[in-house]
């Protein structure tokens, strides 16, 4: 089984430098058979980074990528609060740098059309866009998107694939929200390994719109891999979720950049 991990960070690992953090992340990834990892955001979590902090966070990921170019893919961290800086970071890290995707977190909700220029430019560059989403029983952060917010964005860009981070956390509701929006993909990462998530996602979205990710190192690779290894679905569909689907989504930008996998 080939495994690529859609969703990893450098926060919460031993080591003071991006290179040391990535070394540790890969040590654990190796033990559980993960070949390549997408990493985004820097050495600490910043929910609403300043423009300077955004640049710093992306610089940290660039250092990790330089140390392990054959193992890591980088997604550039952008913010709905800082559109100009975000556009410049797209140019620096994706157009003129090695990164292949975009990470949007909780600085602003993604249904706000002010975000549109970022999506337009990311699509031109063929960068894969990942948007964090949650539906929290106790209420979301003010700038935290729900899967419904992402559906609104996806309807404005029906030909751009967008990833629904965490499948909304409350995946029963998240899957309902994104089911009928064909350019939305489910990220299985970063929730408890609740039985049924993967079977339900495949039933709702089909086998081609479900992606394995971990949210390591905050999450254990083990608990997140178990969502797929432990699911009652055919091995051929597990392979799609672990690798083929993400590979297909990244192929345009990998080809454009001449990155061989």
């Amino acid at each position, binding site marked *: 089984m080939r495994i690529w991990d859609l969703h990893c960070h450098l926060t919460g690992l031993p080591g003071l430098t991006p290179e040391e953090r990535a070394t540790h*992340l890969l*040590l654990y990834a190796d033990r559980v058979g993960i070949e390549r990892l997408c990493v985004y955001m820097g050495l600490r979590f910043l929910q609403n980074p300043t423009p300077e902090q955004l640049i710093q966070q992306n610089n940290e990921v660039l250092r990790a990528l330089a140390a392990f170019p054959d193992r890591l893919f980088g997604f550039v961290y952008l913010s709905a609060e800082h559109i100009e800086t975000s556009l410049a970071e797209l140019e620096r890290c994706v157009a003129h740098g090695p990164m292949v995707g975009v990470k949007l977190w909780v600085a602003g909700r993604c249904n706000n059309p002010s975000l549109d220029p970022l999506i337009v430019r990311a699509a031109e560059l063929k960068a894969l866009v990942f948007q964090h989403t949650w539906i929290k*029983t106790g209420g979301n952060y003010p700038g935290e998107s729900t899967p419904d917010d992402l559906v609104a964005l996806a309807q404005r860009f029906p030909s751009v694939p967008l990833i629904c981070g965490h499948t909304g956390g409350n995946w029963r509701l998240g899957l309902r929200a994104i089911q009928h929006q064909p350019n939305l993909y489910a990220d299985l990462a970063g929730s408890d390994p609740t*039985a049924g998530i993967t079977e339900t996602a495949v039933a709702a979205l089909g086998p081609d719109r479900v992606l394995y990710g971990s949210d390591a*190192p905050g999450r254990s*690779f083990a608990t997140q891999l*178990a969502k797929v290894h432990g699911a009652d679905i055919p091995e051929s569909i597990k392979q799609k979720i672990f690798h083929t689907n993400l590979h297909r989504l990244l192929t345009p930008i990998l080809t454009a950049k001449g990155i061989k996998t």
Partner: protein
Amino acid sequence: MPTRRTFLTQAAAFTAAPLLSPAASASGITDVNIHLHRWPHHRLPHDTPTALADHLHAHGVAQAWAGSYDALLQQDLTAVNARLAADCAKTDPNLFLAIGTLNPNHPRWQDDLKRCQQTHGMKALRIYPGFHRYTLADPAFRQLLEAATSARIPLQIVAQLEDERTQHPALQTPSVDLKLLPALLKDIPEARIMVLNASSTMIHTALQPAPNLWFDIAKLEGCGVLETLLQTWPIEQLAFGSNAPFFYWLAAKLKLQESALTPAQIHTLTHSVFL
């Protein structure tokens, strides 16, 4: 712990590891954190005793300490415990070890303690302070702990079952505050307590090793979480628990592979001596 040098060597190039490395293969596993019956508000895979027994056998589980989800909301715990004992015996008495439930807020809970131990022959009991709405500071909990201790019956405290962020709005149950536990265990040194579903944060902020305190690995998260934890916690007082069928059973098993553990450590983890 591997040295920095072995990290760098190992991370330099990828070679696909088998799903379960030889070091992580374990047989005759004791799973200390299993539930029979139905989760209150949605169906789970393997939520009949027979299906769950087949599932656990297929994964190499030899003994499963099983409570009942019926105990979360049903008030007739006498009936719940009797049904659990009967279902365990009828389905697979070698696999399932029935773990009855007490609620110290119920009148005459002491009768349930006696019935569980004397009628059903139960070897341990489980409590759910989150669902049953009390804290470890309540005098009722201390009375229950004292009664269980003098009956020489160990107690499993379920610290949480579901992430608070995804709970049903009508059934929001707080995680159990474990901060009082170390002092209580000092006061009542003969008590034996195993905390189920404690998170890494709960352990680091509330607990310190004590000879009469165990917990299971079901809710632990983070890369290499077991090898990190073992730097400060004795392995004899950690137990393999899966929180199945709410969680994928394999989540607990793969943690044994993600951490660098010796076969002896894996054996100790998967054969708890709590009882």
